[in-house]
């Protein structure tokens, strides 16, 4: 499979050329165009080896995610006997990055940042602490493991920050981070007062060694700006 990320960093999209019977899995709604020889199969985003109960659990979690984070429950698999070309785009403006997983490391990806993956990359849902669900600020994460390519999109530009020690990031700006990092969600200087008054909402404190990818725009900030402009 070959891929090109075009039109970055503002309106990046992902162009993929698939070999015969090669498959790519992508989040629902992201397809822009594809050659006629490719077929699309839709399935529940439950992890590849999921049994019956895991599927049911995934279904309820997906419904929950839909209400909390607007994520969708389904993913699409694209493949064809002669291969072909397919192009994917995220819904907001921003960049796309490619990460290679070799089975040794896991990536924690902000749920809305997951775009597509290949090979036997598996994605499992993880909540960044139940209390983080307050005010819609919480962290809903996809844990990616296995071998293959992962494509991640962002709102704004993406920059990689190597962490060695501690590093604090506003939760709305987190794209992804490596499993080797520990993370803790809190108000910006601890305590309820700072949570409400700082205007910062929740932040995530990373400690240890690893890379954090952050995005240069915050979707909740856009929503906060738009809301007073809406007609009553």
């Amino acid at each position, binding site marked *: 499979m070959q891929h090109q990320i*075009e*039109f970055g960093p*503002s*309106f*990046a*999209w992902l162009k993929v050329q698939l070999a015969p019977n090669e498959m790519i899995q992508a*989040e*629902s*709604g*992201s*397809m*822009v*165009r*594809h*050659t*006629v020889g490719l*077929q*699309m*199969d*839709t399935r529940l985003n439950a992890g590849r080896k999921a049994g019956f109960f895991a599927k049911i659990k995934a279904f309820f979690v997906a419904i929950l995610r839909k209400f909390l984070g*607007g994520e*969708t429950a*389904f993913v*699409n698999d694209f493949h064809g006997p002669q291969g072909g070309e397919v*192009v994917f*785009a995220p*819904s*907001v*403006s921003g960049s796309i990055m490619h990460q290679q997983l070799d089975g040794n490391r896991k990536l924690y990806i902000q749920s*809305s940042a997951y775009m597509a993956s290949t090979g036997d990359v598996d994605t499992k849902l993880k909540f960044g602490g139940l209390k983080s669900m307050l005010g*819609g600020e919480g962290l809903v994460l996809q844990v990616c493991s296995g071998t293959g390519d992962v494509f991640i999109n962002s709102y704004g530009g993406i920059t990689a920050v190597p962490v060695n020690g501690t590093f604090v990031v506003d939760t709305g700006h987190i794209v992804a981070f490596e499993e080797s990092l520990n993370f803790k969600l809190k108000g910006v200087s601890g305590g309820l007062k700072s949570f409400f008054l700082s205007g910062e909402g929740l932040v995530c404190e990373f400690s240890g060694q690893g890379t954090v990818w952050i995005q240069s725009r915050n*979707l*909740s900030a*856009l*929503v906060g700006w*738009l*809301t007073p402009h*809406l*007609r*009553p």
Partner: protein
Amino acid sequence: MEFDIRYKPAHTLAVCNLNPNEMVRAEAGAMVSMTRNIQVEAAARNKDEGMGKRLLKGLKRMALGGESFFTNTYTATTQPGHVTFAPSLTGDMIVHDCQGEQLIIQGSSYVAAPDSITIDTQFQGMKGFFSGESMFFLTATGYGPVLLNAFGAIETLDLNGEMIVDTGHLVAFTAGINYSVIKASGGWISSFLSGEGLVLKMQGQGRVYVQSRNPSEYGATVGAMLPPRSN
């Protein structure tokens, strides 16, 4: 006259350089800035059209084509001058050089063109209803440059054969291409669950302009986070 496109692809600005007595017609609201020697005529009449026909065409364009009712003309007087244009949403702009063939433009993607290009609306029939686009497209016929805008970056695709394009990602295409509306995948339920719904099958030989973002997807993502409207 020539268009100079700057700051692609996110916050694109189109500079239209005009020689003396050259004129460009643009949709209302698109003008950002212009040199002092440009003469503006608002809601200008098209050369040979009477009042009634002009009114009807404007209404058709507004109600059906997704464009505004008024177009303005910008004419350079005795000196060369320039006008700059920008669309309301962030995104790319591109100039399509029309050489007699017809260019079919999706709703809100038309910005400006000289009068050597005739802009009209084209009824898409029932497939327009299902295509997710408007039921009317705009057509540009003639010789000269046509300035288009998009939501996202614009990809220029020279098609000879077939391609499946998601509704909402189509900007414009030349008349040698036909399109039909089909299900995204085999069954109705999977098409709905896939998030794609209906897609367009483009067939033929010509040029297709595709945009790298989908306004409805963007609206749905941001809209889901906005407070509910209190009615």
